[in-house]
């Protein structure tokens, strides 16, 4: 119940300010065959807000954020991104994908293109940016993620942590308003997790709207405005990280937290 009130309060506060909420999910439902993977999801993310989504595997976290840029299609409910409703209309989808950057668990860099080409492809062809300008922009972001010297290399020549930082730079080159992170550190060796998290913290400090699926509770504490806990396709609890972690209201979150903490 508290979650609904919380959601409505946020919705109202988002409506009061001049800037519309960056993302609104309203009663979103999704099935994979008979499997009900998202159940009545309600979530509003205001501009500049950093949301961390956590939960056990199979809880629908990835599916939820993949619905936001329509890598998955929801079957019921309404999703609004940057004031545009997601529908079958291809033009609105293009508009949304231009504004939403995504970072994947397995990096998904294009292996046949150099790092620089990975970063400039979409700005040149989707944003119609002149090549020179796109390259300058790419170098700026590569410098910001601290790997400008790798620009001429191919993804296969980089370490996992470096590849993920390139993937972040690649997404940023489209100058998105919203960034989605789908377990960005789960495929990394432990010694590389920090370099990627540092990059994300730096990004959060620029005021980017972020939704991040992760199990990195340290990161959640450090940057999240709100943590959303999902289990079995539902949002079970959400709130500020400190409050949520120190005083879980539900058994499911308590169990999850105990398992995570044991793991660490």
């Amino acid at each position: 119940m508290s979650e609904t009130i919380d959601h409505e309060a946020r919705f109202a506060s988002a409506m009061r300010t001049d800037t519309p909420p960056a993302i609104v999910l309203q009663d979103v439902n999704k099935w994979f065959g008979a499997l009900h993977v998202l159940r009545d999801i309600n979530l509003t993310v205001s501009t500049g807000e950093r949301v961390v989504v956590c939960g056990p595997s199979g809880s629908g976290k990835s599916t939820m954020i993949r619905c936001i840029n329509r890598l998955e299609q929801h079957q019921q409910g309404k999703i609004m991104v940057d004031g545009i409703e997601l529908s079958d209309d291809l033009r609105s989808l293009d508009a949304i994908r231009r504004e939403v950057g995504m970072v994947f668990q397995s990096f998904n860099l294009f292996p046949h293109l150099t790092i620089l080409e990975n970063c400039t492809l979409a700005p040149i062809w989707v944003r119609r940016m002149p090549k020179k300008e796109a390259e300058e922009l790419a170098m700026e972001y590569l410098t910001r993620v601290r790997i400008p010297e790798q620009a001429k290399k191919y993804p296969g020549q980089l370490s996992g942590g470096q590849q993920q930082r390139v993937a972040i730079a690649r997404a940023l080159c489209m100058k998105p308003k919203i960034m989605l992170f789908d377990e960005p550190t789960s495929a990394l060796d432990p010694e590389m997790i920090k370099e990627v998290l540092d990059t994300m913290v730096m990004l959060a400090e620029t005021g980017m709207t972020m939704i991040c699926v992760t199990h990195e509770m340290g990161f959640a504490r450090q940057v999240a405005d709100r943590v959303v806990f999902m289990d079995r396709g539902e949002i079970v609890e959400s709130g500020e990280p400190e409050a949520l972690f120190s005083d879980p209201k539900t058994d499911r979150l308590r169990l999850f937290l105990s398992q995570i903490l044991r793991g660490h």
Partner: protein
Amino acid sequence: MSDVTLNAATANAEAAPRTAPVATTGAAAWLRANLFSSWINTAVTLALGYLVVRWTMGFIDWAFVNAIWTVPMNGNVPDTAACREIRGTGACWAVIEEKHRFILFGTYPYEEHWRPLLVCALFIGLYIVSAMRRFWNWVLVPIWIVTLTVIGVLMWGGVLGLSYVPQERWGGLPITLILSTFGLAFAFPLAILVALGRRSRLPAIKMLCVLYVELVRGVPLISLLFMASVMFPLFLPEGMNIDKLLRAQVAITLFAGAYLAEVVRAGLQTLPRGQYEAAEALGLSYWQKTGFIILPQALRLVIPPLVNTFIGFFKDTSLVLIIGIFDLLTAGKTAIVEPAWQGFGVEVYVFVGAIYLVFCFAMSKYSQDLERDLNQHRRR
């Protein structure tokens, strides 16, 4: 503390690199390990070695030492008595000397043979230019259009003071090159579209592509050619006639397209889903995603089977002989119909085979280089 000393010890050990044991490297060691490792291996090596040497010597004797290179002319008819005497022990290359122009250019008017010769040279030039990666851009399109137009003008004539040569008189190597070049040039793009269509979400397009591939693949090329040459004209309205070569060309293109489509589809399927998703998430359109991300990777992966199909298909063009088109192989067969030259098939087939080999080997070698160059990003 013990850790430190241990590290120091390993560091010292690493500091002096040791050479590999001598016994496992070098030619002698390789021979010993691979050819003479046991008495049975030694026996097999010696027996096979003996056969190889004997056969090579026999071939050299037949092809060079005992061979006859020219025969005297008896009026208009070559006197092949000397050749008949050495049948079985020596080659009669005189048949090639005498008949090479017929084999290469078929029944094309003799005094106009410079035209098909130039056409072959143009085709080879076109292959070389197209193979160079520095030309892999829009420049290739006008180059192809201009070259193919010039080739058409040269073959047909009828303009610019060239005498008209009807298609029925074309033959030999130009026919083989025309069928395979046009065949591949059209079949390859068709194959890409069909392969993409087979993975389409639109059921109509998908059905159509599946139907095409399964139908064409389920029928032998010979029956396709028969249909193109015999049945197809029956469906045409009275008085309308489509060139026989063109009909064969279409049949060959459709046939190659179906096979290539499956090769391309295999490449599309090996790409991880993440590549599609990353391209979509960046906002690339379907054609941008396909053209920049999917196809470049998928086609690189299938270079070996693609070239395999190309080579097979280049040789398959020789099947047009059954509908009476005079390609290189048919011209070779026809060359030895003349009584004086009857029975010298081996020499002619070796000659024709060598021409096929040159083209196929060039394709194969080029594909190996291409594979190495294009897959550089896979190496660290």
